[in-house]
Structure formats: C-alpha cells, structure tokens
C-alpha cells in the first residue's frame, strides 16, 4: 500500500488512518460513485423480502412490517433494484450518522446537478442565532393566529390547515416574505424541494422553480441590501463567508438545503397519533412536558422522514459486509426507531416512555444511557452535551420546541378535539422517497 | 519471428486482437495492426502461434 503524507491523512473513528477526501475546489463537487449493478441470485431465493416490496404501495402506506423483516433478517440488505444497501438496526444507523470519516452526505444541490450550485449557509452561526430568536419570538403568535381561524370554523383539517400551514407560515415570517406573495413563495419552495427526487419530471420542474425563486428574490435582496431588516434574508446578505459576498443564488440554495419535512410531518403525525390514541391524547394535553414527550415519541414511532441517504467514502467493512466505495446506504430511521433491541414494545405509541432519551440522537453517545428517536433531516446533531451560552440551540431542539408550542396553543384554543365522524385518516407517503405523514386529518372541536 | 497478416483473407473477426492485445490492435476499420516488429520473447512467440491457429480466416502467417 502506498504511503500517504501527513497532510493526506485523517484519523478515522477507530484509529484507522484514511485518506482525506479530495479538496473541493470551485465548482460542483465531483463525487466518485461506485455503483455496481449486481445481482445476488442465490440470495434471491432465500430472501424474505424482494426489493420491489420496498417501493410498493403497501410499503408507502405502512413501511413498518416490511422494515421489521429487514431488521430481523438482513442487517445490511442489498437492494439490487435501486442499487443500494439498507441499514435497519438502531445501533448501525446511529453509527453511520456521525461517522464523517467513512460516510458522507451529498447535498440536495448535487441531485439537481447544477453547474453553479451556490453555497449552503445553513451552518453559519449568525444565521442560526437569528433563526432561534425569530422562531422563539414568532412561533406562538403564528400558532395563535392559525388556531383562532380554526376556532371560528368549528372544524378543520389539522394536516393542511394546521401542520402544513404552521410550518410554512413560520418560514415566511422568518424570511419576512410579504403576505401577498405567500402563496407564490410557498409553491416555489415546495416545488423546489420536491424536485430533489429520482423522478426526472419533478426534477425539471424543481429546477425551473429554483430559477423562478431566484428571480423573485432578486428585488427583495436588492432592497434589503440597502435597508437590512431582522429577517433571515437580511442576515444572510450580511454574511460574507470566505470573503465572498452572498448572492441570491446562495440564498436559494440555502433554502433548498433546509429541512422542509420534519416540522410539517411531525406535527401532522403527532396529531394523527393523538387522535387515534385517546388515552395518550389526554396525557399529552395535560402539560407542556407531556406534550413534548408525545412529540419525541412521535418522532420515534412515526417519523416523517423515513430514511437518509449516505454514501461511503471508501470501501468499508461493516454490518457483516464489505461495502464498495461510493455505495449508497439507505439508513432507515423508521426501521431503527422500532428496533426491539433498543426500545421495549417498539410498535406502541407510549407518551411517557421510560426507555427513550429526551435529547436528540447523537451517534452512539447516549447522555443518560438511553436511546433517542432518530429524526433525519435536521442537520448535523449538536456535538455539545450541553449547549454553550454563545451557541444557539440546534435545529432539532428548535423544531421540538416549536412543535410543542404550536400544539399547546392549539389545545388552549380548541376544546375537545376529535376526529370528524366517519373519517379514517392514515399515514402514507405520496410517492417513493417522500415523507410519510398524514395528509388529511379532519377534526371537530369546540371553541374555548 | 515476424508476424504477417494477409489483408485479403482477413475477415475482421477480431480473434487475434481480442485474444492477444499485446501483439495486435484493431485499427479504425476493424483490421488488425501488428504491434511488435520482431517477436523474440518465448512467451510472445507462443502467443503468435496461438493467434495464427485461432484466426478463422487463416490470414496470419509467421516468418522466421
């Protein structure tokens, strides 16, 4: 084996020396992809799961039985149909989560294959700090607005009029998008996010949406350069990472790389679960603490973001296999969160679970010896056991607090929230790869 | 030993250059081009003989 100089080396998690990934110069990242289309014929006959089942409608309605089979029999399942490996055990998924040395995430802009991707500013501290402030300030007010509107009506759809609405309104407010443009912005944002998919038709549409969004933001950015406000756009404009001033494109890419699913999906799933579990419902609405626990349990029990993609940086021997470099790993949070080795009675929705940690999942580290529900999509977990004073809370914590606040506001405005008679809501993913949530949740309630 | 190819007889089957890329390569039209002027090495001599045998058009001849 050729020797490498010190500059080329970084030390992996277990003391193993590995080569640094190539430095990214200007331009889009050049990922090496070892994507072999390989059939393992013999495995097919003894396979209790065929890869087609993982993209079936059945799976999109209820992935958990299928994932249970994966988890029990195939710690690292070779899905030849989509050319990937599925990881389904809790400890395996969390071990990948923070192992930057061996696994990498690829940004959504890579899926788009853009020539000039623009920079992702989501990890810049000033931005995080501003977000924290804005969310803390506005969340309750926005929730009150939405709840009041609902209260007037006497009935509503919690999935669309509450969960989706709240998440979008929060973003709009944080960016200070004029009310008149709310619909247009929401639509562009949604199309742009949806385009990060395998479906080329959606991708094309998403690219168009990105261009339209850039066009839309041009005058706003120009105006806020002259007169900065206290919104995210203004803060972003004032950043100059690597001494390069921020362009509109950077802002659009930053929006792209944000998570758009967790708050929306978690709220919808939370209320779906509460409404279908009356006892737990009563528990959750009795105090903020219990509502928080219900939210955490939702993230575990019915996580909206079912999986995350990771790519191996090099050939790695893990989970009982030798995985090629550049291989795609499907880290199934849904499967991991129902791992019976980690959680007792994992398929039950239990609000005050004693075997679950109330902190965010941080790789293999367990603050109080307990596992947390894995929720992908909220950015890198915080590396700090306790948040230092000069650092804002992590996105995970922000989302949690926001969701709990919104739910509490809802409960304080609407009494006796019940499922509308004769409805049988369910969780589903509209298409392969999208979030698994409740899309229609009609309810009735009384005014308080 | 020199390897000669009779282009008249050659049917462009490709057996020579695919079996022995160290001795032949394919030109743009599909005809083989001999890469080695003098085949002196013992292993290469064997390969040349095999190529001559394998050619379905019997178009390869070896001259000492």
């Amino acid at each position: 084996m050729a020797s490498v100089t010190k500059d080329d080396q970084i030390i992996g998690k277990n003391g193993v020396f590995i080569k640094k990934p190539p430095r990214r110069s200007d331009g889009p990242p050049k990922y090496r992809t070892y994507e072999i289309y390989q059939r393992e014929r013999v495995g097919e006959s003894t396979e209790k799961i065929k890869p087609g089942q993982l993209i079936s409608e059945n799976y999109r309605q209820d992935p958990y039985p299928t994932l249970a089979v994966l988890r029990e029999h195939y710690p690292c399942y070779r899905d030849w149909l989509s050319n990937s490996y599925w990881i389904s055990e809790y400890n395996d998924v969390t071990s990948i989560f923070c192992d930057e040395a061996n696994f990498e995430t690829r940004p959504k802009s890579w899926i788009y294959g853009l020539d000039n991707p623009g920079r992702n500013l989501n990890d810049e501290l000033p931005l995080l700090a501003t977000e924290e402030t804005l969310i803390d300030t506005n969340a309750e007010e926005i929730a009150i607005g939405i709840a009041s509107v609902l209260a007037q009506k006497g009935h509503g759809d919690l999935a669309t009029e509450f969960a989706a609405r709240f998440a979008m309104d929060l973003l709009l407010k944080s960016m200070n998008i004029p009310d008149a443009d709310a619909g247009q912005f929401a639509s562009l944002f949604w199309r742009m996010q949806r385009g990060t998919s395998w479906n080329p038709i959606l991708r094309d549409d998403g690219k168009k949406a990105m261009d339209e969004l850039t066009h839309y933001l041009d005058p706003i950015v120009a105006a806020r350069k002259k007169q900065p406000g206290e919104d995210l756009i203004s803060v972003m404009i004032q950043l100059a990472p690597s001494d390069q001033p921020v362009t509109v494109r950077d802002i659009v890419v930053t929006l792209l790389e944000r998570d758009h699913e967790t708050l929306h999906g978690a709220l919808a799933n939370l209320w779906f679960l509460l409404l279908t579990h009356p006892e737990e419902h009563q528990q959750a609405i009795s105090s903020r603490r219990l509502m928080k626990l219900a939210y955490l349990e939702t993230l575990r029990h019915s996580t909206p973001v079912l999986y995350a993609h990771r790519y191996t940086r090099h050939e790695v021997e893990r989970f009982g296999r030798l995985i090629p470099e550049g291989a795609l790993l499907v880290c199934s949070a849904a499967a991991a969160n129902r791992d019976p080795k980690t959680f007792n009675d994992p398929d039950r929705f239990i609000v005050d679970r004693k075997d679950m940690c109330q902190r965010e999942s941080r790789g293999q580290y367990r603050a109080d010896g307990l596992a947390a529900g894995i929720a992908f999509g909220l950015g890198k977990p915080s590396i700090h056991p306790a948040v230092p004073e000069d650092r804002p809370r992590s996105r995970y914590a922000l989302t949690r607090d926001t969701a709990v606040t919104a739910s509490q506001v809802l409960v304080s405005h609407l009494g006796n929230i019940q499922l509308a008679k004769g409805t049988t809501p369910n969780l589903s993913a509209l298409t392969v790869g999208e979030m698994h949530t409740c899309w229609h949740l009609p309810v009735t309630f009384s005014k308080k | 030993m020199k390897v000669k190819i009779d282009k008249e007889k050659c049917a462009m089957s490709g057996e020579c250059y695919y079996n022995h890329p160290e001795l032949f390569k394919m030109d743009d039209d599909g005809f083989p081009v001999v890469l080695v002027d003098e085949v002196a090495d013992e292993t290469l001599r064997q390969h040349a003989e095999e190529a001559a045998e394998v050619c379905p058009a019997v178009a390869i001849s070896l001259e000492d």
Partner: protein
Amino acid sequence: MSEATKSPSTEIDPRVFDTPEFQKNPFPVYQQLRDHHPIFHDRFHNRWVISRYWDVDGAFQDNESYDRAVYKPDGPYEFGSRHIFGPNILEYGNSGEHRRLRNIVAGQFVGQKLQDFIPMIHQISDEVIDKFIDADEVEIVRQFASQVPIRVISNMLGLPREDEDTFVEWYQALIAGLGFGGEHLMAGLKARNDMWDYIDPLITERSKKPGEDLLSRICVAEMDGSRMTPDEVKGFVALLLAAGGDTTEKAIANMWYHLMYTRPDQLQDVLDNEDLWENAFTEMMRYDPVVHAQFRHTTREIQIHNDVIPERAGVILYLGAGNRDERAFKDPNTFDIHRDDLHMGKENRSGRYKDGKNGHLGFGIGQHFCMGYAMARQESAIACSKLAARIKNPRPKFAEHEGISSPSIDSGGFRTPAELWMTFDT
C-alpha cells in the same frame, strides 16, 4: 452538465423499466431514450442507460472503461461466490483470469471443432421432430425449441444417451430457478447440485483419459500451461446450459414467431430456400434479440453526450435499443430477412465487416462477444430447416398471439413467446 429543460412528454419516468408493459414492448421507451436521452441517468435504480447503436458499440469495444466484472473484493466475505453457477467466466471482467478461461473454451465452439458436431445436430433434430411429426400441430416452444439445444449440449459433452432425459430435467429446473426465483430457485439449486455430483466422476475420468467430446476437451485444454480446475469446469457446464441452451432455444422459437406473425409473407421465402434461415436468424437477432441488455461498470469518468458518467457507475447497454437505431439501419422497426443494410452471415467479434454493412448487437461486441455465436447460428439454422423440410404448409394455429415478452429485461431476461402453436400438414 445541465441540459436544456426537456418538455414533460420527452422525460422518462424511470419506474417504467419495472413495468410489465416495458417487458412486453420496450421499443417505444427505447425510441425515447435514443431520441432524447442518449445518456440517461436513472436515479431510481441508480444506474446510467446507453441506447444508441454507436454508443453501445463503443462501450462494448472499450473494455478498459466499461468493465464487466461484478464487484468481487478480497474480503473475508463470500461476495459474489453465491452465483448459482458457481465460479464462472461471467464474473471475471477484463482480468487475465477471464482471458485464460475464455481462451480455453472459446476454441471448442468454432471452426473444425464445431463442424465435428454437425452430424449430431442433424440427428438430434430429426429425433425431436419424430416425436410430434405424426400429429398435425406442435407447440414449438415446449416440443421443439426447448428440446433440441439441450440434447445437443448433452451429446456434445459426451453424456450417455440414456441420461439425456434426466439432463433435460435438470436443465429445466435450473433455468426455472434462474428465471423465477423463489421456491423454483431451491429446486434449481438442487438440480444443479445433482448435476454436479453426476459430472464430478466424469471430470476425473476424462482428465486422465480424454475422449473426443467437449467435456474431455475442456478438462484437458491448456492455455499458458494451465488447465481449468474441476470447479471451473462444473461452473462452465452450468453456464453452458443457460447461455448455450436457454438462449438457443429462445432463438429458435423467436425465429418461428417472427415468420408466422411478424412477417408471414416471408415465411414462404424461407420454406423455398433453406439458406435463408441464416438471414432469418440474423434479422431476428437484430429486430428483437434474445438478450436485450448487458451490464457494465465504468472504471473512470466518461464524457458522453454532454454528460459525465462518474467513475465506477453502473451502466446498462441496451443492445435491443441499439439494434433499432435509425442511425444504423433503415426502417429499423421493420422485420425483413432480405434487408440489405445488415450484415447477414457469420458475425465476428470486432463488429466490422468487409461488406461495409453494420452488424447486429445481439451477441455483443469485442472482448465478451458471445462464445457460442457460430454454434447458435448453425444449430438454429439446422434445426429449423430440418423441421421446415419435413412439414408442408406450416401456419399459426391461432390468428392472434400475445407476443414476445420476458420475465424481466432488467435481469438480463431472455425474450421469447410463452407459447407458439403451429399447425402443419405432412
């Protein structure tokens, strides 16, 4: 790398490759691929797709860049050795291993060595036809096409004639297992193991005292002073059944299908002149070959059609699409055994022909060109011409036919009609 946005009607939803419609009739999708996506990145299945004639030809020729081997790391895990055939030549890419194995066996299927088997092929064809000639109809797939090639191989291997039927059973179980998986695969594995148990003593015996049969020749054939190991011989025999038996059987059925349903007006031409069976074979291989796709992985970044395939990406080469490329053939969607822009007659590895015409891609091109090409062609032609000679007025029994389909093109599935009934007089 970004291309101009295509209109929704030209975009391809990658899920189409899994649909039964595509398996039945992939040609419209091929057209779209060739016209609008000469290089298509299928993110759903995580692979790239190449469809134009000259691109497929180029990819086949460029073995350095488009490697065939399946991922076989030197790990302690038994990666790749779980192939149903055991260790075999298909798994080796462009390594010296591949060349060595190929050189040992390839020579057995061409030239004089092939000619030695021709009388036997005539005899087998006659025997198979004898079994149904007294009826006035025949189900070509089951009673004819699937009987001849396997018996030919069994005889080529020098297996005793009384074991021929058992061998046919093993073969059918193996192929069913390969194609359908599930419980069929367990039966297929059992059949494979039985077959290997049967062959083992033969290998030992014939390595010491070789006869004139194919098995002896394989056991003793040397290249660079090394012979095939017994495991390799067994793996090769299993491979021979699928690659040599299954494909030829489907080729025969496909030829009759096209002459009965696609171009019935050309059936009489073939009946009048049995030399035209070779043309029928060639045009069948172009129009709708038995194998439509080959898989490769790239060993470097490859620039193609203003896109870049990353290093070590999976690539599907659709030869079925390349064969219908109007850049290579006039009226490509017409089946015509008298076509003047297709090289009829023997194919060769280089894909270049002295008559300047283009060849079909059905056997591949280059390093991994089908080893049994000459045998497939001759065997099909002989079997079909023998049947044609012994019957009069052949015609399809049913006016309608559901057409050719395949279990899954994706799996390198072999295309053939499920059933093919023919009525005839004697």
